[in-house]
């Protein structure tokens, strides 16, 4: 059995989803933690230190390559799974079976697409301008704190960010527990714990993210 055979099998494909999913969950913790520096409410001083380090130091820049690989694998495999699975039933049912599973567990592709659309907008707000200037030394380092202030003074931007966070919350409400099942955790005591942690995580982390644009919009932080 070659690695290739493992990873193109239905179970192997899910292993890729699970591993990259957990990797992205870890990224979310780092991202939320760093950005929480804005609530120091010190005119962005602490946050800008952190942002300068993340954009300028080579350790996070190398880790970032891993993050990109993780995202691309997850997105590619996610769409592959969604499309291939749909093809397995050419003639559908007249009456759908919707009681047996949660709507968000059946809508991971859709929720992922919403997250992806949000990500593209989010990166064009912060990542692209910052990388081209600080990262590739094409211009002066961008003051990301001021940039947040400007972007998040626009109501529709704030609303889109909140929708992005809600999509993430539902994606994780299924994804968190599913990832561990995919990796083979079947013990009752762990599963119970992981289900609770999963729901907790999928509420708290997206809420922390959503509070950032909201805090700027309502000028809770200056």
């Amino acid at each position, binding site marked *: *059995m070659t690695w290739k*055979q*493992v990873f193109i*099998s*239905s*179970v*192997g*494909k*899910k*292993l890729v989803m699970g591993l990259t999913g957990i990797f992205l969950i870890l990224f979310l913790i780092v991202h939320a933690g760093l950005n929480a520096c804005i609530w120091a409410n010190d005119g962005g001083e602490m946050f800008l230190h952190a942002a300068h380090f993340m954009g300028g130091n080579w350790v996070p820049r190398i880790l970032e390559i891993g993050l990109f690989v993780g995202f691309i694998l997850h997105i590619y495999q996610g769409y592959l*799974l969604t499309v*291939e*699975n749909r*093809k*397995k*039933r*050419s*003639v*559908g*049912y*007249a*009456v*759908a*079976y*919707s*009681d*047996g*599973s*949660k709507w968000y*567990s*059946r809508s*991971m592709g859709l929720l992922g697409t919403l997250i992806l659309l949000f990500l593209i907008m989010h990166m064009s707000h912060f990542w692209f301008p910052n990388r081209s200037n600080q990262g590739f030394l094409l211009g002066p380092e961008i003051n990301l704190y001021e940039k947040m202030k400007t972007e998040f003074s626009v109501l529709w931007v704030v609303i889109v960010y909140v929708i992005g966070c809600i999509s993430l919350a539902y994606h994780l409400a*299924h994804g968190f*527990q*599913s990832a*561990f*099942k*995919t*990796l*083979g*955790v*079947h013990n*009752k005591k762990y*599963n119970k714990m992981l289900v609770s942690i999963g729901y907790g995580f999928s509420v708290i982390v997206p809420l922390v993210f959503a509070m950032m644009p909201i805090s700027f919009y309502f000028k809770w932080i200056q």
Partner: protein
Amino acid sequence: MEHYHMNLNLKVWRQKNNQSKGEFKLYRVENISSEMSFLEMFDVLNEQLIRDGEDPVTFDHDCREGICGACSMYINGKPHGPWQANTTCQLHMRAFKDGDTIVVEPWRANAFPVIKDLMVDRSAFDRIIQAGGYISVNTGNAVDGNALPIEKDKADSSFAAAMCIGCGACVAACKNSSAMLFLSAKVSHLALLPQGAPERKTRVMNMVAQMDKEGFGACTNTGACEATCPKEISISNIARLNQEYLMASLTAE
């Protein structure tokens, strides 16, 4: 509960053969007893159709006591109908009221092609079993009972997995047409016992490969299979299967 009679409208999938397109046909059955089973109600319908010179509805059934797994009907949007932990043959008409309209469809999955009307070809499951759902033993003298000690918990979990009757409701219920609940029951019931240990790795690899070849989808842990399974096979078996597969692929040659 009190015994009553009812008149029902049936919306049944009719399809001549694998090649033809198929469509829903409306039928009316009258004076159905609440004590009848769902399949007996279909027998009444078929006698009526034969009397009228029409083609009776083809459906799979054998034991009619919930143990063979043949009776595949997707009733009002759920495999095996509205009751929990139940097969179509054990569904009784007291689940319905006078005047109800009942929609009956075959299992829908490309890996289960329709043969005729409500009967589908589930031989894909047989081929998955042939790929490794057994143990190879030398048939010498019968060994003494209890010669091989097995932990009670393990034996119970294994028995619970071995309850699977291969009905295919899990595939029918799954948005991905995945056969993972079925496969995980078959792999778990052997993986939990010492007799299953020698062929453990090749079994899971070969059975997953056969499942993929048959055209079933990949599991995304939605849980629809567990919710509809007549034998209440636990979805934690799927996680066990994933572990078996991961371990086998990490350590295989």
